[in-house]
């Protein structure tokens, strides 16, 4: 099963710390939404722990213990990062509060300040123009649902679209579908309207 292979590979990349910020955020958000994903991640982390134990130790300077508890807030991450929980809250419960930009009929986008990372909002009851991909596109559903040739995706599900994979996502009538997308290439639309959309996207 190709989708499962892609999922396992993504989860291992995450456990190994090998994902870029956009994909790491997508997996973190997935883990908040899916208990099964957390269980799988816990298994891979345990493997990571076992590998850490088996590393040959390097020489380390002793940490001066005096004063260790009074160190300044070195690790309190004062700078903002995109947080998965806030992302879910904003994108799934209050999508109208966000500044969407029109991209194509039935499609709005909000680019996140991470390379290759966007929120996409597909209107309920709409099909997005058929498009392919110049790289790999990973899609996590945050609100609503969509279907394509490969399957049906609901909140927390991850869809994979490889290079050369053409699909036309369809959103069921009713609620909009909001997705977090991590992309390593560009969308390639087919057809006249789609080519205009592609120009707008680029």
């Amino acid at each position: 099963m190709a989708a499962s292979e892609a999922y396992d590979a993504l989860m291992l990349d995450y456990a190994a710390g090998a994902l870029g910020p956009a994909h790491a955020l997508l997996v973190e958000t997935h883990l908040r939404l899916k208990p099964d994903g957390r269980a799988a991640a816990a298994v891979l982390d345990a493997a990571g722990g076992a590998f850490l134990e088996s590393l040959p130790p390097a020489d380390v300077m002793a940490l001066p213990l005096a004063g260790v508890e009074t160190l300044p807030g070195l690790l309190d991450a004062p700078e903002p990062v995109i947080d998965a929980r806030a992302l879910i809250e904003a994108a799934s419960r209050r999508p109208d509060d966000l500044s969407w930009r029109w991209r194509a009929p039935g499609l709005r986008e909000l680019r996140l300040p991470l390379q290759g990372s966007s929120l996409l909002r597909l209107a309920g009851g709409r099909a997005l123009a058929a498009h392919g991909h110049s790289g790999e596109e990973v899609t996590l559903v945050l609100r609503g649902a969509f279907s394509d040739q490969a399957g049906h995706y609901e909140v927390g599900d991850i869809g994979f679209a490889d290079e050369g994979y053409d699909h036309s996502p369809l959103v069921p009538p009713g609620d909009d579908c909001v997705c977090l997308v991590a992309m390593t290439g560009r969308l390639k639309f087919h057809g006249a309207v789609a080519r205009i959309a592609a120009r707008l996207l680029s």
Partner: protein
Amino acid sequence: MRQTAVPHGAPAADAPDRERFADLMAAIATRQDREAFAELFAYYAPRVKAYMLRLGAGAALAEELAQEVMITVWRKAALFDRKQASVSTWIFRVARNRRIDAARRAKHANFDQEDPILHPEAAEAPDDAVSAGQRERQVRAALTTLPAEQVDLLKQAFYDGLSHRDIAEKTGIPLGTVKSRIRLAFARLRTALGPDI
């Protein structure tokens, strides 16, 4: 030749006593026990530094990151839950996340800090039903049964921080084969989740 990530049979001489290490974390959390911290530091700091070196950090940065990870152990020990993970797994996670954070912070030069999406938040613990001890034991047991090619792949992921695409490029093994091996290794490790999942 068969290579394994963890020793067969009897634990290696320096394999940690997991219950003791969890007790040390509790001692740090409840009474800022410096001796407990010193013992954990002696075991983990050199391994975290080795991990950072493997990931490509220079000696100075690896040292700095290892120290930071250990300071996190000291400061955040109360967040450690022995029912969720072993100390090794918890520290591995802290070390890995230091790297992700560093990469992420480097990217956000100028965006709106009032944006509702941007709020730092502590990570959420997994809430699966399998006990940590059971999971740790079964994962280690599963690791000893993996074919060498799958262990090599996991080593490249966990020790070198390579993505599956990087591994395919570096080794010349087709991407599809790399993915299949990950799937097979993952299936074996997943037995640690128990039959119900």
